[in-house]
Every structure is written in C-alpha cells, then in structure tokens.
C-alpha cells in the first residue's frame, strides 16, 4: 500500500495494463503531445492535465497515439479497432465533447453486439474528465453520467478515490464491452491508499465507505467525499451509512436496498443536473422495490437545472455541498 494521487492511480493502471497486454493502446489528443515537433517534443505533455505523462516515452507512438482534433474519428478508431481485436483506451479529454462524436459511441460501439446477434465483443474504454468545481464553465464542467447510463450497451464507471480509480480502470480495460470511464477533474490531486500491483475492482459492486444505522446516503463520484465528511462530522450524533455505487451502469441496487432496509432513511446526492439523473434512478428503485422500508420521504440533492456558471461563487452554489448534505441528514433523521 502506498499513498498516491487519483491522477497517479489512473496513470499506473494504464501503464500496468499496457505492459501486461500488447493489444491495449491509447489514442486521443495530446496524450503524448508535441507530435510533429522538434526532437524532444513528442511525449512532452502527457495529456492536458498530465494523466498520461510518461506513457509515450515508455510505449512509443504505436501505443500512445496522438490525433488531429477529430473526436468522431477517435471514437470510431477505438470502436473499429475493438471489433478488430484490439483493446483501445480512447481519451475524450473533457467528456463535454461527446456532443460531436456520440454516434460512434451510442449507436455504434454500444449496439454492435446486440445488432450483430452476439457475434462481436467491443472491448474499448472511453476516458474523460467530468464535473464542476474547476472554473472551466458551461462546456467543460458537466457531469453527463445520466446520459451515458441511459444507453444500453454502455457501462459507466465513476470512481471517487485513487484506489477505485486504478481498480475500476483495470476492470474497464479488461472488460469485453464498451466502458465510459469518468474522471472527476477536481479529484485528480486528491490522495489515498492504493494497493500495490495489479488488482481489478469489479463493476456493479457498491462500496460502503461509511457504515451506519440511522440514515443512508447514496453518493456518486466526488459527492462521496462530501458524504463521508458529513458522516464523520455527525459521528456519535447520527449514524450515517455512505454507499458509493462506483459504477452507475451496472448499478448495484442490492446494496442500496439492503442499506435502506436497515436505516429506513435515504438521501441521494448526485452532482448531475436533476432531471432523469442517478438520484432520480436510485430513489425510483427504492420506491418501487422497497418503499415499505422507508420511514421518511427520501431526499434528493443535485445541481440545479442550469448550465454550469463561470463565476466561482455561482459555481460553488451550483455544486451540492457538505453543508446541504448535513442539513438533509438532520431533516430526514428528524422526520
């Protein structure tokens, strides 16, 4: 075990899987950087936020492939190469760019296996940044996971800590289906214990990050950190259980329902915009399958139904906060 950043954990997962399996390659924009430049230029960037740093230098231009600014071509490159037997990991940089290339993901890669009657596997990963809090405004700060989760054929991973970032990415790369791997940009510099060597964190298995008996908080991605903070704040006063589903598709509804059956009180925190998001999904699952367990109305905490504002104070107000979560816990506990 060693303490690593979220960024280092992702880099390590990529490196180890590329060493393990020759069919794994990376493709995207400036994941190497400096292509076409002077001798020292190629590989000098390693991604806009340094996540792929050093990989070009170790694996070269056939395994770490920089491209023109052509996301449909990049996604098609991954989907087509996967059909042809490779294991591509494509970077979309900011997932907000999915709007220019989603067809290759949702109509093509996600549907091949079904449309082709089970003939094919499509082992590809699409990595990209999500989330607000970085000051990157309306077109570079979105959550978007409800959209990816809605699409049959896609799997969606949303790690909240370095250990899961590494373990889920290794699982994603080894998975035979297309996986959307979402990296919350505000988490890159967060640190945590990361087991040494190779390990795969399975999809569809929620992680209970805090055990408790009074209130269940289901939180996604960065919101898990806030939920944990609130659980710790309230320790001794209100016993809060925090459930981190880790993947939104598949979604571990079992662990969520078990938790609610024990606590009888549910709060769901999703940074995504509110309509048809994961908080709605989780509350709907509990209401249809375990309503009898609820001692109080569940509480949904999400961003408002607005784009992400540029101004730092507005952006902070946009993101669900630990204080809002704490108030919600007190409210639902009192009910």
């Amino acid at each position, binding site marked *: 075990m060693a303490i690593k950043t979220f960024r280092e954990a992702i880099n390590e997962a990529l490196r180890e899987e590329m060493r393990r399996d020759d069919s794994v390659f990376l493709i995207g924009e400036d994941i190497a950087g400096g292509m076409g430049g002077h001798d020292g230029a190629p590989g000098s960037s390693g991604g806009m936020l340094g996540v792929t740093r050093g990989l070009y230098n170790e694996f070269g231009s056939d395994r770490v492939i920089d491209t*023109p600014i052509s996301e449909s071509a990049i996604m098609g490159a991954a989907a087509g190469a996967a*059909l042809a037997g490779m294991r591509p990991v494509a970077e979309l940089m900011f997932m907000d760019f999915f709007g220019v290339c989603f067809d290759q993901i949702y109509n093509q890669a996600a549907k091949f296996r079904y449309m082709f009657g089970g003939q094919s596997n499509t082992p590809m990963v699409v990595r990209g940044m999500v989330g607000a809090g970085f000051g990157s405004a309306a077109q570079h700060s979105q959550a978007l996971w409800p959209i990816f989760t809605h699409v049959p054929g896609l799997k969606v991973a949303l790690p909240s800590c370095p250990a899961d970032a590494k373990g889920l990415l290794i699982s994603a790369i080894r998975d035979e289906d297309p996986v959307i791997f979402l990296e919350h940009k505000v988490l890159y510099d967060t640190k945590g214990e990361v087991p040494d060597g190779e390990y795969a964190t399975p999809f569809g298995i929620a992680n209970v990050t805090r055990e408790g008996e009074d209130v269940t908080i289901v939180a996604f991605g960065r919101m898990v950190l806030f939920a944990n903070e609130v659980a710790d704040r309230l320790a001794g006063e209100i016993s809060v259980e925090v459930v981190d589903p880790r993947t939104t598709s598949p979604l571990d509804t079992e662990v969520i329902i078990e938790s609610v059956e024990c606590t009888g009180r549910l709060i769901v925190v999703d940074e995504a915009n509110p309509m048809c998001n994961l908080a709605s999904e989780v509350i709907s699952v509990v209401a249809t399958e375990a309503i009898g367990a609820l001692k109080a109305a569940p509480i949904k905490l999400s961003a408002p139904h607005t784009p992400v504002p540029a101004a730092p104070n507005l952006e902070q107000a946009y993101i669900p906060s630990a204080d809002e979560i704490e108030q919600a816990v007190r409210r639902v506990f009192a009910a």
Partner: protein
Amino acid sequence: MNKESALRAYRTMRLIREFETQIAREFAAGTVPGMTHLYIGQEAVAVGVCHELGNDDFIASTHRGHGHCIAKGCDVGLMALELFRKEGGICKGKGGSMHIADVSKGMLGANAIVGGASPLAGGAALAIKLRGQANVAVAFAGDGAANQGTTLEEMNFAASLKLPLIFAIESNGYGEHTLADYAAPGDLTERAAAFGMAAEKVDGTDFFAVHAAMERAVKRAHSGKGPSSIECVATRWHGHFEGDPQLYRPKGEVDALRRNSDPLKKFRATATKKKLGTKKEFDAIDADVENEVTKAVEAALAAPQPDLSELLTDVYATY
C-alpha cells in the same frame, strides 16, 4: 486476372443482382419487415472492391449494404434469414437489413447512420497498422455520405495517421431524393485528394476499372503510404428505399440505365472479349445463382421468428 477469378467475380455480381431482385419482389409482397435499400446497379463497385480481399481485410458498410455483404463473402442463406428477421439469421434476426454483419468475414456491418462507417473502418485500419498486417480496411460511403462531417474528418484523420484505409465512394447521383450536384458543388475526388491522399475517379459500372483502382490502392496501403480514395460512378436502379415513388427522377431515366449502364452486361462483354468467359458459362452461373437465391428466400420465408428470450441477450458480453 485468370478465368476462374473472373467467373467468380461474375458469379458474385449476379448473386447480388439476383438476391436484391428477389428481395424487391418479396418486399412488394409485404413479407420483408422494415426499411430496405437495394444495391442493384452498383454491383461492380462492391465486387470490384472486395474481389481480392480476405477475411482479415475489413469493410464497413452503409444502409445499402446487401451487396457489400455478398461481395465480402457473407452467406446469402443467413442473409435472407436476417432480412426476414428470422431465427438463425446472420444476426439472429436482431439486426435486419441495415445492421447485417459478419465479423468473422471482416464485414463490420451495414450501418443505418450515414457517415457512420468511415470512422469504424478507420479503427479497423488502425488495428491492421498496429499489428503490422498486410491487410486493408475499406470504408464504403455514398456520394451523400461524403458530405457528412464524420466522413470528411476521417479522410484527414486517416491521412494524418497513414492508415491502410480505402474510401470507396459510391457516386450514384442521389442522396435519398436529393441530387448529388445540389448537395456537393465540389468534386468528391478533388476533395479527397486535397486531404493529401491518392484519389481517383472510376467507372463504377465497370468491374475491371474498380478492380484495377483497388489494386493500386491496396499496394499503396501495404507499402505504408496511407489512405486512398476511389470514387466509383455508378447508378441506382431502384428507389432510395423500396416503395419510393421516385417523383424526383425524370421519366425513363431508369429504363435508360438498365439499357446502357448494366454492370453485368458490361462484365459479360468485356470478359468475353478478354476470353475470361463464354455466354454458356455466364448463363450457367445465372441459372445456378437463381436457384441458390430462390432456395435461400424460400427457406427464410418458412423459418420461425426468433425465440422471445432473444430480446434480452447480447446486450453485454458480461454485466
């Protein structure tokens, strides 16, 4: 090209013509579910492009994909089952006309998204390049699809990464009900060339012309020179889809095409001149093919629908 190879090419073109003709008849009879776009008039393109390709060469196809499938070696019996959406279809009846595929044959699927094929073919080409194989990938695109951003961006992308990718642009003069000249003032071959790839325009009703251009493109790809574009000028004899009233077409246009632009007639004439086949041999192939397709269609009509349990299978390899 030797005689055996030429007769094989003719047989494949005839197989496409016969298959599409019988599907057209069945569609009119109401036995073919959903939308269907037929390939009649363009047979020389699919066969000219695919004739020398093997299962390790890939093609990505379009909504008008039956011809590409047959040319790439897909079984017409399984294809017929798929078009009728029956159990045992090449995609278990879950794909239908616009998603027909046989990955084991390197046929990565018809595609209901115009421009959807080029990026995928680019991915297959990338896999070939990374594995150092002496193979190619082909992106089929219509003259309408050539105006879709995905097709255009893939042309630059493939040139930038020197992918062993061949764009087979099928210029049949129409995109749905719109004339190609209206939709694209520029010349499609010049457009491709401007991205820095080898680009040529050939008579898409002449198998030998397409085949020769393809040989040049494959050689370039194998020698690491990157992508090529072959614009094949051919004609579409049927409507955009079956049932299309085609009011946008001048009266008599199609009759003239049947008379003057028949890829099979042209093939017979040229091949006969080149001593690559005789009338007797061609006629024998025609009869044989008609019989094969008739059997395939009858079997497909008689086959049962997929089992209802198939609704929930094949979404994920694991979930």
